[in-house]
């Protein structure tokens, strides 16, 4: 009988134990997958902001319309710069306040919402020139400030490295959790199937033959647990996305995305490998000691 068939037969016979094990593995993997999801989304926002090459030129309140038009024309004529748009103080106020009835925001003075020129850098070469362009714009007397959002990119990078560290730490915790769960399950399964193991050894089965189905079961528990975790997280992601998509998109400049399929496959493979390795190692000694009596 093939090892997969033997493993399936054993799983069916002890379904409850296997389901509990898969559930425990799934809980551990949800933590890891959630951390990865956060990292993936922070990275997406960072990349979006870095690549978007947006910039805002805040104008002094005393800037005349001729001066504004001059800057606008100069920007529009600059290679790689496009979508130059004038946002008046009133428009800025409207954009920020939106439909909000927040008393604090509505009480802000007009100076809190300066008029600006918003523009986009349309290619990578232009993005690289943003610092130089900012310097030139700041030198103009009727320009208050230039915001290139680089600082936000740096902050997101820092947040991202923190997220990666947290994910690595969680990976360690998940490894320990999965090893512990699968190892306990395998030892329990071995105990429950001691009669079967005894019979197998009596009729001349090698340790590898006896261990085979247990290793497959360990791999299945790890893989199914990880797949269940990805599925659970996917459901949560869909719920959150459907509820907050618009607001999050406006706030972050990017829509929340799910783990790439390669990461999902890698998680399932990781689960399978840890499960199989744990089962193989945890049954090494018990099987050597097992003899028919």
């Amino acid at each position, binding site marked *: *009988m093939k090892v997969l068939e033997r493993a399936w037969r054993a799983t069916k*016979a002890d379904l409850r134990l296997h389901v509990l094990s898969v559930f425990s593995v799934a809980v551990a993997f949800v933590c890891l997958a959630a951390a990865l999801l956060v990292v993936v989304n922070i990275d997406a926002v960072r990349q979006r902001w870095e690549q978007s090459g947006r910039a805002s030129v805040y104008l002094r309140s005393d800037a005349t319309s001729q001066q504004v038009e001059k800057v606008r024309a100069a920007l529009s004529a600059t290679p790689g710069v496009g979508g130059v748009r004038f946002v008046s103080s009133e428009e800025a106020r409207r954009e920020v306040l939106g439909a909000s009835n927040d008393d604090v925001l509505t009480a802000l003075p007009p100076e809190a919402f300066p008029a600006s020129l918003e523009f986009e850098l349309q290619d990578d070469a232009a993005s690289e020139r943003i610092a130089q362009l900012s310097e030139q714009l700041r030198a103009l007397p009727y320009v208050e400030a230039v915001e290139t959002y680089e600082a936000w990119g740096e902050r997101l990078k820092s947040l991202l490295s923190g997220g990666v560290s947290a994910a690595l730490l969680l990976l360690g915790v998940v490894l320990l959790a999965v090893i512990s769960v699968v190892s306990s399950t395998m030892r329990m399964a071995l105990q429950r199937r001691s*009669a*079967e193991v*005894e*019979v*197998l*050894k*009596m*009729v*001349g*089965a*090698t340790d590898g*033959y006896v261990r085979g189905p247990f290793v497959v079961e360990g791999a299945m528990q790890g893989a199914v647990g990880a797949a269940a975790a990805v599925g659970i997280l996917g459901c949560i992601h869909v719920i959150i996305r459907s509820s907050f998509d618009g607001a999050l998109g406006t706030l972050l400049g990017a829509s929340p995305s799910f783990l790439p399929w390669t990461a999902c496959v890698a998680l399932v493979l990781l689960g399978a490998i840890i499960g199989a390795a744990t089962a193989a190692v945890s049954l090494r000694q018990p099987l*050597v000691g097992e*003899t*028919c*009596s």
Partner: protein
Amino acid sequence: MNSGLPDGSCGPDGGHPAQESPPGGFRPLLRGSQRFDPSAAHRDILVFDDVHKAYREDVPVLKGLSLEIARGEFVFITGSSGAGKSTLLRLIYAAERADQGRILFLGRDVSRLAPSSVPFLRRNIGVVFQDFKLVPNWTVSQNVAVSLEVLGVAPKVVRQRVGEALDRVGLAGRGRDRAANLSGGERQRIAIARAIVAEPALLLADEPTGNLDPQLAVDILGLFEDIHETGVTVLFATHDRSLLDVRPRRVVVLDEGRATDIRHGLNDDAAVERLKVA
């Protein structure tokens, strides 16, 4: 016999340099450079040579036991409880190691086998226990088929041979039943079918009738005798004197760690008298 058989190899008693056997394999000894050794057929299948075994230092179970079993013999092993019947059988299939002495099965000393070779030894030996040692949640067929599955026999052949084995033990048509749902006598028949389905050279029975009523015990003994008729060597350990009286078979009595051989069964009055005197 099913597996672990050589194309040709040699050992200490063969007088030829031993041929290399695959790592982890149990290889009975034959003369080198020959695919078939005619003299092997006349050699004893099992030889105990001055075997000592003790679980506790001060309580030896076997004290210099020497015994030869020829191919195709049916031998009763008897003795009181704790005399060492089960130990003797466990030494043969390497569930125990002898402290001293040699146990030659098909010319190879099983007491010195590497652990990785033990499974290959066991593929040549069928064992039947008093408590059946079945997997209760498996079907009858699954319990029998396991002996062939570990050998990697094709499923179609497994089905055919399991059917034949169940037919031989009188359980034809019961293959789909759960082992747990069968009676004691039927369970013992499953265990016997499992032991013989791979056509072993040697069949060991460790008190196989101990849990059965007297009539069933005689039936089971008859079954072992039928199997023996096909050329299988049988060692039948029992303390049930009534079974020994049924047939004039060779009886080995274990007492105080030594074996007394009664060649023609307990109907050999002279031999029994000698045993009583001893």
